[in-house]
């Protein structure tokens, strides 16, 4: 099984409703919980580019999240 297949299997395992209940309770901050109540605007699809601009996912500026 490929790594990606394992990743998908992991996600599928989250579909169990008994597990899904605690997503926001245990893992999401109050700020995120507030975000959850916001109806988000439909986001736009941006194209990949090769010139390093922000809409290039392989660009040089990682937006990784290093939460405490």
């Amino acid at each position: 099984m490929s790594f990606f297949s394992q990743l998908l299997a992991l996600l599928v395992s989250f579909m169990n409703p008994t597990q899904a209940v605690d997503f926001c309770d245990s893992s999401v901050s109050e700020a995120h919980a507030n975000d959850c109540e916001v109806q988000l605007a439909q986001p736009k699809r941006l194209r990949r580019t090769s010139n390093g601009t922000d809409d290039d996912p392989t660009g040089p500026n990682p937006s990784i999240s290093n939460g405490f």
Partner: protein
Amino acid sequence: MDTSSLLQRILNSVDVHAYQAPVSSVPEAQRPAIEQIRAALTEARDPARARQLAQKYFDEGALDLVQYYSAMHVIAASPLVSDWEEAARLAGAQELAAIRRGGPNLQQALASVDRHRGVVAFLNDAPDVALEHFTSAMERERSPENLGNILCTLLRLGELDEAEQIVATVRDTLPPSFVDALLNRIELDPDLAALRH
């Protein structure tokens, strides 16, 4: 014009903007102290002050050893510091402290360690290694932050189709609160721009 200085200013600005350090995984009792450290690091851009605060709150008992090491790691891994040896060492120290502390928050604390190790790998141009750590973090703590890091890493690896498939799976199956939090990050995170639609 000092173009190298100008370039560095631009890079610093971009990097500081890109480096996110949310406090959502911190136990509630320690969150106010961590929030002050986060503000000193990401808003005041003063890692020395952030370290002072971490030491002060640890000495006062507002932070336990696990959160103290976590905070010191986040500071070391910040683009303002980029001390990777120290960041990696602190992740190991945090892991040992978490194991020794044990308790009901053990998995959440270990997810934080996984996340920190993934960040060190990701920012040292080893996205394949980062993906393993971020997946382990996701297994331990099912949060939009951890899934967002997985998506970032897949995109960095050029796995756009797989990332889109994951987002589609999440949208169809996970609770709306989780989906909305993830979509919010996709909307705000330039690295995830390819997943906006």
